[in-house]
């Protein structure tokens, strides 16, 4: 036998590396690994239940009897549910477009404008991010009722936009702050007015962040419940609001089917947000764009 120090055998560590007197659980990856595996299990079991039972052949969430896609066809053939799906999609798209435009402009203004209103604008922009949704819902309900506006599709859109602007601003600002303004100066030096410099040079440079922010907004709006709940009228009900009513009525795998489909839609939006910068020929990773780390 070669001279292997006995205590090194079976500890899974390269021998001679550190003093082997006492190894705490903290640094032994195995314990952490097990624990993490359990957490993953905890996170995914309900999801597995949702997806599995969406394919259940009987109307039960307790016993799985066989594979069937009837709940999906039920969902897609049900006119009110289908309508809700389109309502959710339309709201998400409109919110995405408008909130992205307003939020990007706000980000540009916050980074570039040096006025005494800037700190106030900054705080105003940050507060929605830390405001609980129920407060947002209540305040939206009050302003609409005060102005005599009846709750409808557009009240939901307006409320969604109000709360999406800040997300867009934060994402775009992160990217903008790490870009210098030398490129805009170069554009001006070459004959572009300030506005042209913004349009022709600044916005293209910001584009990955803008797209990522937009898709994030889409996902958040599509999934939103509390805010929609407070601002929904009689006519248009987004999908999550319908789910809420459905849940109160009782068990049905249709809800699981809806939930699974919504998950796919939201996931697609976010995956696109992460991968899209690559398609623009940039080398940055989408995650870094979203968190504003990459300067480009």
């Amino acid at each position: 036998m070669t001279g292997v120090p006995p205590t090194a055998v079976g500890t899974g560590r390269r021998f001679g590396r550190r003093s082997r007197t006492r190894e705490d659980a903290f640094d032994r990856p195995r314990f952490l690994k097990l624990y993490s595996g359990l957490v993953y299990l905890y996170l995914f079991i309900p999801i597995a239940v949702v997806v599995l039972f969406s394919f259940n052949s009987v109307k039960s969430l307790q016993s799985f009897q066989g594979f069937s896609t009837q709940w999906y066809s039920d969902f897609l053939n049900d006119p009110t549910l289908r309508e809700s799906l389109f309502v959710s999609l339309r709201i998400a798209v409109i919110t995405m477009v408008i909130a992205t435009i307003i939020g990007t402009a706000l980000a540009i203004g916050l980074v570039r404008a040096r006025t005494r209103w800037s700190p106030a604008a900054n705080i105003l922009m940050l507060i929605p991010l830390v405001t609980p949704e129920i407060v947002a819902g209540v305040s939206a309900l009050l302003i609409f009722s005060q102005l005599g506006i009846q709750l409808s599709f557009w009240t939901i859109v307006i409320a969604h936009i109000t709360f999406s602007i800040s997300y867009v601003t934060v994402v775009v600002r992160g990217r903008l702050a790490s870009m210098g303004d030398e490129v805009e100066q170069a554009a001006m030096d070459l004959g572009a007015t300030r506005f042209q410099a913004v349009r022709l040079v600044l916005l293209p440079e910001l584009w990955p962040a803008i797209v990522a922010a937009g898709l994030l907004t889409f996902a958040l709006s599509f999934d939103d419940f509390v805010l929609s709940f407070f601002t929904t009228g009689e006519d248009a009900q987004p999908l999550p609001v319908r789910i809420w009513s459905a849940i109160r009525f009782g068990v049905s795998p249709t809800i699981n089917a809806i939930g699974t489909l919504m998950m796919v839609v939201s996931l697609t939006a976010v995956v696109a947000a992460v991968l899209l910068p690559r398609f623009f020929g940039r080398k940055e990773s989408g995650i870094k764009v979203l968190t504003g780390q990459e300067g480009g």
Partner: protein
Amino acid sequence: MESATAEPVEPVGGTGGGNGNGEAIRLENVTKRFGEFTAVDAIDLSIPKGEFFSLLGPSGCGKTTTLRMLAGFEVPSEGQILLEGDPVEDVPPYERNVNMVFQSYALFGHLDVTGNVAFGLKRRKVPKDEIERRVAEALELVSLGSRAKSRPSELSGGQRQRVALARALVNRPAVLLLDEPLGALDLKLRRQMQVELKQIQREVGITFVYVTHDQEEALSMSDRIAVMSDGRIAQCGAPEEVYEHPTEEFVAGFIGISNLLEGVVDGPGTVKVGTGMRIAAPLPGDCELGDTVQLSVRPEKIAVDEDIEEGMVSMSGRVASRIYHGVNTQITVDLGEGAHLVALEQQTYTASADDRWEEGMAVRLGWHPENCLVLR
């Protein structure tokens, strides 16, 4: 209200417009203050057309601020800036017939090389076929014809620099401003680019205003140099003049090694230095007995030991340190009373700088009095 689309504007200071007397740039009493801080202090400058002019100085001396005022990114607090005879202090950068090459190149990442170079022409609404022709010309000029379709991210530092140059030159500006453009390149590439830039400037005949802190760069490339310090111009002149006849202590020290000896005027042509020795020196007419002066001798004008000739002033001292530079060896000689002089032994085809001197050895230094400068 700023228009969203620019009508085809003839830039101010266009070539041929205004008389200017063959003068490309004139600065009159230009001052720039940032709050309490004065970055540029009442400078006057005149740059004739076609000159390669450098602004040289350490960081914070105001050279970049001056350049930015020429470009239009800063507005002077006081004074006038004339571009080919036209005052341009109130003219924004996009209306000046001036283009700039930025230190970081500032290329447009979302456009390819052609898109970058054509940018300025498109803004001026130049017709398409002319744009194509001029872009091709500009890329030929900087030897980048093969990379017309590449994106900036695919290019090396040196190539990006050329794109920045082509992008600026294609507009045929009256003046080209360059803000330390070679700073990010390695030494060899920098030397190569220095030669190329000078060639290009001769070829296109455009006035270049070049900002740098590298005195060798300025000396080798410029027709004239303005040495700046603390917001003012210390001296302005041809490289030979600035190097061989510095008028100020700062200039003598910034360009080359100044080798200063402090002394007191002792007679019509003599100065008494710290060690008590009396040295012959070419004093200017208005020097009076008892004036304190700085004597400055360039190291390359100093002879050591056997090389000392008749008529030279000579002093003795000890070798304090020795630095080998390959092309020469530099020795610092301690003359006593805190006075130091740096002398060189050049490697030549007859002599070689082997260990002739060691630290502590006694040496004699000498120089012709006319090679000594008197500064106050």
